[in-house]
């Protein structure tokens, strides 16, 4: 099947407006006859559910957690971008569009990104109307801050809990519709498979996680909003339950999977402390507004620090290497995430890492604390030369901005970041790759849509900070509810889809067979045993730096691990009870397939772009080197029985508006 991105004709700035005016609509009376399934209740899924229900569709929404409010969007910290230009610092729709394309290293679609920038301002209006308590200044107006890879302040925030506040806003919009009976909410339900009837998405098989029962749910369209697949690395900043299964199941039913190797490794996470580690914790990028990143200049100092003989605060200013400020003077500590992560790895690989494992750098707030302290002392008419007073006043300012993050750090690491620099190291955080979708956010399966992090569409090879929340809400509130109508307009006479159809029966039987096989396997190793090995392969060979040899090994090793998993995995309990280990087994089975496709995709893309760094493709200074002539395309993989047989389709990326250039933050 050829890829048709269905990008509307006409000038870039008019495409979305024109498209909205021209697509088919469903009348209010007919919307009542149409059912839509939404899988996932993060920003994308919750906002889509709410809006579809408001429009009049009958919505059924599924989440595996005990409540839709738990979805992992809740953990997003720093903020959400919008081209409001409230600061009057030169921002515009075009600049947000441009920054996003450039930040994504010229591997995303112009039309999609421009639409995202256009609707970004509506999101802020909408959220404020819903009572989302964004940060405000003393004049009562909304405050902004700056994020990596941009030179304006366009990020709206609610302390370090922006994701929580936005998600609770979307959750409240959903609750209103649940109360009205327009959304039927299925908590603790996991989508196990997609059901196709006559080639169209017509429903899902879901498992009630409380009693283990398999359920058939039909609809006229199915929306996948199940998030990203960072947990393929085992250790990531994703929630423990975050998984690829819904996206992977639709891939196996015919949806192409795009750019699986495009992963974001976030530069500021709390370093790994030991073997028992179950997940990693992010320290928001917003901290790079006020924190300076450094390692010691002298290896002797590094040694003394690791042995506990020297404290970082004792190292003189001239003996510190603020390597981001040194290498990238224009953007300094606010370079994009991929650049910051690789620079940290470079220093640590050279032996300058500052903790026992050698994998940590400092994020230091001392300079900001002093700067803010002096400012406050001046405003209050106090002594600006009183060091203790200045420090206290400065700490109060930092506490007001990042208090919850500092508290979180202290609880995990047992050090006080107001007094000593934080230690940070890159960790897997977000996946730009995902299900391939056209301009309407429809996958290659008619009637099956993918939104939010689950799709591949807007961030290219690297996502800018505070853009994930923007995309999730844009897709859910303002894009999908329009575009889905174009498809459903032809379905108004379909009537309710019968769940007794043989297609449902067959899908249910195959799910049952897989689950039975797990509990009857009586193997020797736990699910986590396999997940940890997979994670190590992925981190070592498909992580921040990739090469041909490692990727080939990864492919072979993951395939062998998958075979061993099916032979020897041990899943306790039965299929007819609350059994978290069984749910985990089904998710890890999918990661074991995705991981192989991931490595295959990384091997195929013999260039460095954004978060994908191939050692074979770099400049003499070690910066990423793109190959625009050969790789200006989206890799869309078609499932052919197993990952190694997946067929590559290329969607060429045409840049009409933007001149493709080498990305420079120097």
């Amino acid at each position, binding site marked *: 099947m050829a890829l048709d991105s269905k990008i509307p004709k006409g000038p870039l700035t008019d495409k979305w407006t024109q498209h909205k005016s021209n697509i088919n609509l469903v009348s209010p009376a007919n919307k009542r006859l149409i059912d839509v399934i939404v899988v996932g209740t993060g920003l994308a899924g919750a906002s889509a559910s709410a809006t579809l229900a*408001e429009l009049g569709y009958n919505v059924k929404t599924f989440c595996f957690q005990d409540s839709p409010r738990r979805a992992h969007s809740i953990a997003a910290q720093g903020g959400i971008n919008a081209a409001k230009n409230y600061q009057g610092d030169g921002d515009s729709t075009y600049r947000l569009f441009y920054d996003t394309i450039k930040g994504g290293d010229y591997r995303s679609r112009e039309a999609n990104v421009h639409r995202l920038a256009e609707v970004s301002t509506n999101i802020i209006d909408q959220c404020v109307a819903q009572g989302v*308590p*964004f940060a405000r200044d003393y004049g009562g107006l*909304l405050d902004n801050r700056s994020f990596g890879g941009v030179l304006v302040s366009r990020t709206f925030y609610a302390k370090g809990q922006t994701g929580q506040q936005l998600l609770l806003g979307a959750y409240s919009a959903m609750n209103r519709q649940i109360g009205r009976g327009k959304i039927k909410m299925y908590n603790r339900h996991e989508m196990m498979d997609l059901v196709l009837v006559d080639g169209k998405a017509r429903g899902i098989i879901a498992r009630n996680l409380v009693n283990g029962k398999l359920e058939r749910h039909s609809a006229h369209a199915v929306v996948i909003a199940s998030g990203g697949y960072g947990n393929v690395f085992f250790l990531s*900043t994703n929630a423990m339950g975050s998984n690829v299964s819904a996206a992977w199941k639709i891939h196996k039913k015919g949806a192409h999977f795009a750019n699986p190797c495009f992963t974001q490794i976030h530069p500021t996470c709390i370093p790994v402390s030991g073997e*028992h580690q179950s997940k990693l914790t992010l320290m928001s990028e917003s901290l790079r507004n006020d924190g300076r990143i450094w390692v010691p200049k002298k290896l002797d100092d590094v040694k003394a620090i690791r042995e506990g003989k020297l404290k970082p605060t004792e190292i003189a200013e001239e003996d510190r290497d603020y390597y981001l400020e040194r290498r990238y003077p224009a953007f300094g500590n606010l370079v994009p995430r991929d650049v910051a992560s690789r620079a940290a790895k470079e220093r640590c690989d050279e032996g300058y890492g500052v903790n026992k494992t050698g994998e940590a750098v400092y994020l230091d707030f001392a300079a900001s604390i002093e700067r803010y302290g002096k400012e406050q002392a001046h405003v209050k008419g106090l002594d600006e030369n009183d060091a203790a007073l200045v420090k206290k006043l400065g700490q109060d300012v930092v506490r007001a901005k990042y208090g919850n993050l500092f508290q979180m750090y202290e609880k995990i690491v047992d050090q006080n970041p107001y007094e000593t620099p934080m230690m940070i190291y890159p960790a897997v955080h977000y996946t730009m790759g995902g299900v391939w979708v056209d301009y309407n956010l429809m996958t290659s399966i008619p009637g099956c849509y993918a939104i939010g992090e689950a799709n591949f569409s807007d961030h290219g090879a690297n996502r800018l900070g505070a853009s994930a929340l923007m995309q999730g809400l844009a897709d859910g509130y303002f894009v999908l509810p329009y575009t889905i109508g174009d498809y459903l307009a032809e379905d108004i006479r379909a009537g309710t889809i019968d769940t007794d159809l043989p297609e449902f029966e067959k899908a249910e039987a195959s799910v049952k067979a897989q689950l039975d096989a797990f509990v009857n396997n009586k193997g020797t190793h736990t699910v986590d045993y396999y997940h940890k090995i997979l994670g190590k392969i992925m981190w070592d060979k498909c992580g921040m730096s990739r090469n041909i040899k490692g990727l080939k090994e990864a492919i072979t090793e993951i395939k062998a691990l998958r075979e061993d998993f099916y032979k020897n995995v041990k899943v306790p309990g039965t299929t007819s009870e*609350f059994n978290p280990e069984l749910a985990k087994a089904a998710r890890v089975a999918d990661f074991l397939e995705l991981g192989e496709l991931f490595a295959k995709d990384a091997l195929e893309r013999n260039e460095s772009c954004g978060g994908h760094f191939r050692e074979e493709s770099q400049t003499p200074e070690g910066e990423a080197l793109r190959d625009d002539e050969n790789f200006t395309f989206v890799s869309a993989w078609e499932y052919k029985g197993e990952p190694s047989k997946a067929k590559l389709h290329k969607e060429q990326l045409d840049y009409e508006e933007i001149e493709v250039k080498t990305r420079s933050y120097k």
Partner: protein
Amino acid sequence: MNLTLKVWRQANADAKGKMETYQMSEVSPDMSFLEMMDVLNEELIEKGIDPVAFDHDCREGICGMCSMFINGEAHGPDRLITTCQLHMRKFKDGDTITIEPFRAKAFPVIKDLTVDRSSFDRIQQAGGFVSVNTSGNTQDANAIPIDKHDADKAFDAATCIGCGACVATCKNASAMLFVSAKVSQYALLPQGKVEATDRVLNMVNQMDEEGFGNCTNTGACEVECPKGISLENIARMNREYLYASLKG
């Protein structure tokens, strides 16, 4: 560290539960409490014993899913954190740790330490929202300036993670802190004022229907709340409720 764990085991909602004892050795002080539980479960699976079911997801203290009652306290001995952020350095070698689910009539046990908190969702569905359509055609976000003081207070109330520690802690299993946090968030903002009367009446009514107990102002909920939601919110909700009742 070597530890003795006494863990509540209950096969399902209808089964009779009891405490079981497990020995743990070589526990690192840097482990989080849930990582210690992961190790326990790995050991149980290898021995052919059913692992302990417990809710958890984000493991960074924000999703509100983890919910253990540890040594008689919701989320254990530390303050202003959830169970997932509790670290083993808070315990000593040789300690005995008692682990139970969040108990309340409105939080029935599903299995072991996992409880059903959908009653919280139903309270939110009764009125925890502003009735604005998600059309994007609202007025400009900066059209209504909001006093920073009020905005900050609304934010503080809005940081409730819906974990249920307040209910589990309260001797009456009251949900007043949870409900008042949402009522306060909207009561403090102009956007929420329009529906304030219906909201507080409907949410309180749903809270009573779910079987939560009454508030007797002991303040235990505030102490155990991982987000430090203030008792002030309960006072504000009481005022809102009184006003709404008189008006209604």
